[in-house]
């Protein structure tokens, strides 16, 4: 796409905006990793993304594109993009109280770095003070919110009371807006509503254990940490849940990389306070591994109070960022090896190095990230106790089953053929009073069924433990019993059949081990430190 010009991009955006059936594609153009953004400078990307936002301002903003707009207001530092986002937000179907904090935040960020803006044509730069500015567009959007901005009224008043930072014209506009908000009697938006984003909008995603992407493709990826120590993805990220953030030292947006790594330092402190520092790993991985050598990683982490030790590392991927970008589906693009645009991203990995939760675009809350790591620990503990429980349940079962199966074999082998034989058998036990038990021919198929079940269980155990000697012995015994019952003159062999069945069943019960037991004990010992 690099060979295609900015003018072509502008035409594409305009044509998508003009076509009601293709407007949805505008959201796709806001993905950082879109091929249109490859090998372009940051200023060019600002022009391109800004033009998409302006197209949204014309066509209307949906819930699908709202996150990109809030992202600019939340952590953008470029006046053009903030102005475009503020303009676009007014094209959302209805004002919402949840937008208030984003607007206040953007006002606080940009008020000392305001710039003249022109939306007249693609790539136009304002040359006169008559043009609009980022602050002007933000104030207009606060006015659009009207009574919905009531929850951020104290912030807006505080902003207004600091006389510097706003021109007289803007101060007057803000005064009018504040008055309008205050005078509106409708107050259905209490403080609790201030932070609720539309329900279908979220900067965080979680995946259930069975739906997580395997980490196998990057298990052998080699990392180097802040001390120059090298190891594979598998070595560091498997065995424990991990919290991973991405950054690069040359990032010039203080609300992205610098803040992210600072927050990682705070996460580490919280993890320590929760007593989880030996159960959860943390890592900050650079997007710029060619430039961010160990010395730079160490200095960057140290300056932001990041703890660096065997469980907490600042990392660079020695073979480049491509494999990681694919695994984590990073929102990033490059000009040569340097990042030209990226989003905020933090991940929580499970003990197999798979992404279990991600926090992207909007600034995340440290406690929320830790909560997900704790969920993973709980998930692991539950899994471990479930294995443990089934192991305990299974412990005595094979032996009991083996005993029952063997009794059934004996019963089948020596079950009397007729009531007379039954009487003869019982007469032998007359002293014990067994002669009172009536002859029941239906008992024979039941004993045969129990014997068959025993045989099946012996085979299943043999299959599981990969030891088939016991099932073979038990099967031979069962076949001999059957033969002794059906072939005339073979009756005496029944004893041999019973002994073989008994030996096979007991051998199977003794050699029974759950397949996961070793892994379980390894995990258990790691868990308990």
């Amino acid at each position, binding site marked *: 796409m690099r060979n295609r010009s900015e003018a072509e991009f502008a035409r594409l955006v305009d044509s998508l905006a003009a076509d009601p059936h293709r407007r949805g594609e505008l959201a796709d153009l806001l993905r950082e990793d879109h091929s249109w953004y490859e090998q*372009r*400078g*940051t*200023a*060019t990307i*600002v*022009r391109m993304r800004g033009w998409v936002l302006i197209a949204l301002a014309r066509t209307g903003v949906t819930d699908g594109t709202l996150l990109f707009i809030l992202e600019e207001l939340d952590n953008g530092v470029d006046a*053009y993009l903030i102005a475009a986002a503020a303009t676009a937000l007014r094209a959302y179907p209805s004002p919402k109280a949840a937008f208030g904090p984003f607007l206040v935040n953007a006002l606080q960020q940009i*008020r*000392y*770095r*305001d*710039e*003249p803006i022109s939306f007249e044509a693609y*790539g136009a*730069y*304002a*040359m*006169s*003070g008559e*043009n609009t*500015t980022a*602050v002007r567009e933000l104030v207009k959007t606060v006015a659009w919110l009207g009574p919905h901005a009531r929850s951020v009224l104290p912030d807006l008043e505080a902003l207004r009371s600091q006389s*510097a*930072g*706003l*021109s*007289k014209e*803007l101060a007057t506009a803000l005064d009018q807006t504040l008055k309008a908000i205050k005078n509106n009697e409708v107050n259905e938006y209490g403080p609790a509503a201030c932070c609720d984003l539309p329900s279908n909008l979220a900067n965080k995603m979680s995946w259930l254990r069975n739906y997580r992407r395997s980490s196998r493709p990057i298990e052998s990826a080699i990392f180097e940490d802040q001390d120059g120590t090298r190891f594979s993805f598998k070595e560091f990220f498997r065995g424990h849940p991990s919290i991973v953030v991405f950054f690069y030292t*040359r990032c*010039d947006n203080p609300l992205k990389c610098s803040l992210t790594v600072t927050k990682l330092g705070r996460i580490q402190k919280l993890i320590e306070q929760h007593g989880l520092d030996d159960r959860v790993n943390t890592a900050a991985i650079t997007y710029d591994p*060619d*430039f961010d*050598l160990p*010395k730079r990683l160490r200095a960057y982490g140290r300056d932001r109070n990041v703890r660096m030790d065997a469980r907490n590392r600042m990392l660079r991927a020695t073979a480049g960022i491509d494999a990681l970008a694919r695994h984590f589906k990073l929102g990033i693009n490059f*000009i*040569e*090896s*340097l*990042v*030209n645009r990226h989003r905020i991203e933090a991940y929580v990995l499970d003990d197999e190095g798979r992404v279990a939760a991600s926090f992207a675009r909007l600034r995340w809350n440290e406690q929320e990230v830790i909560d997900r790591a704790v969920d993973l620990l709980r998930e692991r503990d539950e899994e471990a106790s479930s294995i443990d429980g089934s192991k305990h349940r299974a412990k005595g079962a094979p032996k009991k089953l083996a005993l029952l199966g063997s009794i059934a074999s004996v019963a089948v082998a020596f079950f009397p053929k007729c009531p007379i034989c039954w009487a003869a058998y019982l007469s032998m036990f007359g002293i014990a009073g067994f002669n009172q038990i009536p002859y029941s021919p239906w008992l024979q198929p039941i004993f045969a069924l129990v014997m068959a079940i025993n045989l099946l269980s012996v085979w299943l155990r043999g299959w599981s433990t990969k030891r088939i000697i016991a099932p073979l012995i038990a099967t031979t015994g069962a076949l001999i019993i059957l033969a002794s019952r059906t072939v005339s003159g073979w009756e005496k062999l029944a004893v041999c059949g019973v002994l073989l069945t008994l030996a096979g069943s007991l051998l199977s019960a003794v050699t029974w081990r759950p397949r996961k037991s070793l892994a379980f004990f390894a995990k258990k010992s790691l868990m308990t430190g």
Partner: protein
Amino acid sequence: MPKKSAKPTRPQVRATETSLSVATDPKGRVADRVTAMAEASMTICEDDQSFRAVINVLRDPKEPFEVRNAALQALGAAAFRVIEFAPCRSDYIATLRALAEDRDPTLRRRALGTLAREKDGYAQKKLIEGLKNPDVALVSPEKALQFLSYDPHAEAYAIAREFVKKPPNDEAKAEALRLLAADPKSAPLFEKVLRDKDELRDNRQLAASALYSLNPGKFQKHARAMLLDKSEFEDIQATSLTALAQFGDQEAVGKDEPLLKGIQKLGAKTRSAKYKKNARQFLARHGR
């Protein structure tokens, strides 16, 4: 109690008002206007009318260069007071953009320099266009490269490499190398420049510093080779010695017998007292 920004007293305000009226009076003497402009710089943004008057002077090509230049400097000084200047910043940036295409080359250069420090997209676009097509260049290539080096995210690495290959002059090549000093892909280029004895010494020094930053291991290898190269220039060897002393792997260096002998020789043959001292200190550190 937090300190409030010092507000000018009444006589100061009057003095400033007078200065501004002198500075913006088209009929006044140039020297007086220049002096008045400097005096008014700290309060330019406190009053909309005064600010507008100074901006108008700066934008007006009919005004004398000296006065316009003084207005530009006064605004630049005022802009340092970020909070107080915030309401005026937008107009100031717009004016700088307009000035970037002014007929006067000094004002153009200063405006573009200020905008480049702000990482302004308009300035970067104009500078890159000028490097690609000298007919539309607003400043010299070496200035354009210097200004673009303020922002590593500008699209300038590829162009800078072209300028290293075919530089229009020595300054442009030096600026292109300086710009590439933050580009990991250019490490092989710096290795080449560093070892090229026909290259300007300044460029080789620059290459040494860039290579150390981008690939310290490679730099240490070259520094050792240059110290052992009898035909190498003394100042380059001295730079290599300093780099090894400051940033080298001391354990490896201490065991490197040929290198230590080479440094002994350098210390013995050099006439520079400074180099002798450096060599002596280096050897002493490793028990020689």
